[in-house]
């Protein structure tokens, strides 16, 4: 099946030596291509962990993640490395390289497989323009505001036109105009057939009506809204 599928996912942290914390349990869901899925839930509900599992950054304690039918969560590290080329991720805390410029941060995922730095820069500038960051292209990432950092992280996630996009709080710290730009970029990804999963607290994402499917995480379980 196309898209991302989770089957009976279970994620437990800190089993040894302290008490184990069950983050996710029995999470089964389908995230289709060309659809934007919204995951909401209280702080600490496990939204970020679910996104990290879907992006192949975490291994589930039990269950599996299938990408276009392939059991990526059971693959070895090298295979998952290659698969992650098709994934774009926006971390909740952006995780930019603070000494690099905004443009350098954005083109970073494409550097190893590009033939020309000029082409890379052109691609980076194009995405920055979509997110109203053109003027900040040369600025150091460490000097950006929270909203600018998060938009830069989104630009970095979409510059490679990924098949799977995981965005953790992409509209955090954004004013209405920039929040709209962010949602527009997410919608564009969906329109070209990518699987888009967004974890958000921000009611604007819900109200905007961009989500094709709304899931809520509570007590480690994923429930369709």
């Amino acid at each position, binding site marked *: 099946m196309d898209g991302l599928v989770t089957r009976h996912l279970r994620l437990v942290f800190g089993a040894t030596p302290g008490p184990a914390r069950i983050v996710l349990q029995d999470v089964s869901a389908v995230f289709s291509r060309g659809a934007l899925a919204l995951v909401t839930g209280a702080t600490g509900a496990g939204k970020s962990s679910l996104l990290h599992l879907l992006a192949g950054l975490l291994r589930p304690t039990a269950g599996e993640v299938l990408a276009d039918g392939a059991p990526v969560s059971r693959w070895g590290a090298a295979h998952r490395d290659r698969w992650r080329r098709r994934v774009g991720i926006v*971390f909740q805390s952006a995780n930019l390289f603070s000494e690099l410029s905004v443009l350098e941060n954005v083109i970073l995922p494409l550097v190893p497989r590009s033939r020309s*730095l000029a082409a890379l820069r052109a691609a980076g500038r194009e995405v920055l323009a979509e997110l109203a960051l053109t003027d900040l292209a040369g600025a150091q990432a460490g000097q950006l505001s929270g909203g600018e950092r998060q938009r830069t992280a989104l630009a970095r996630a979409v510059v490679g036109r990924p098949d799977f996009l995981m965005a953790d709080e992409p509209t955090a710290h954004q004013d209405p105009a920039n929040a709209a730009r962010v949602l527009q970029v997410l919608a564009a990804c969906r329109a070209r057939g990518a699987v888009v999963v967004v974890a958000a607290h921000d009611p604007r994402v819900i109200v905007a009506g961009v989500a094709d499917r709304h899931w809520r995480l509570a007590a480690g379980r994923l429930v369709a809204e």
Partner: protein
Amino acid sequence: MKPPHLNPLLLWAARDVIRRPWPALLIASALALLLTVSGTVLLFSQGLSQTARRLLAHGPDLVVRRLNAGGWAPLPAAEAVAAARQVPGVTHAQARVWGVAAGPAAPLMVIAWADAALPPAADGKPLAAPRPGEALLGPGVDPGPDPQRLALTAAAALELRPVGRLPAESALLGQDVVLVHSDDACRLLGLPPGEAVDLAVDVFHAAEAAAIQPELAAAFSWPVRITARSEAVGLYSGGLARRGGLMLIAGIPAVLALVLVVAGAVREAVGQRREVGLLKALGWTTGEVVRLQVYRALLIALPAACLGMLAAYTLVFRPGVSWPGSLLFGWRTAPPRLYLDPAGAFLTLLELGALVVGPYLAAVLLSSLQGAAADPQDLLKGEGLL
């Protein structure tokens, strides 16, 4: 014109060096210094030995000295030359007069010079053999307060007039040499007229020099000691080897420094767990992360190695280099300016470069391979990013 195509990963590695310049500069300086020190020690030992061998190859095949109960004794020049020339295989024999005399500043080697050719003087003018009362000075001879007068004292005191100076290139052998007329040399050294210190003998085949020795010894009516050129070369090389061995002790700190550089490279790679984890989260594979680290290491190590090797080469083979004379040979007056033979230096430097840069690159490769092969979960979770 189309700009040259450069691998973006290589450019990114250069950007990464600039992003964190201080650790890169520290490692580059350590590598360059390491190569300069160890390269200088090795090249100097090799260059000196090679140059000495080349110079000694121009010396006589055999040297004959007369022995008596007290040690060395002068030999009658004409009689000795005639006796030597009668030995089959001997092509040339020449009586020599030389000895040590006290100069104005330091002891000097006084040599009687007759008609043999001399190289052009330090100022480029042709040099003629000194006439009675004249002296040709080696590059390091200090004539004292009056440059027109050289006072020498041995068995007798003598005042000579300096008429020229040997070229600086002859310093390795002629630094403290004074060439004088044979009459002046005999008078200064207390030799009766017609006597010589030793006899220089050339033979038809240098390989036969050892075989001729018994016959040559028997040709004289007094006991002699004959020294072959190969013995002189061996003696000289032995001395240089001992000095080289002592100098290699200086290599011990260099090895320790290399260990520290390697440890620093490993530590730096381990300290980059967060960055490696993020790169992998962004879609970089293990191979790509390792390539970045290796490119980065190459960008640091190669210029540093070139700089270190160039510095070592310049320190040893720069024409007229004078530091070894005062530093290593304890020369008390003006140290000799050396013109060492650089043959084989390039290969030695390449080997040394590989010995220094190789372990560093291997340390970077292995530690980055170990770090980058880890799962992002292990890399990022430990850094609190997941």
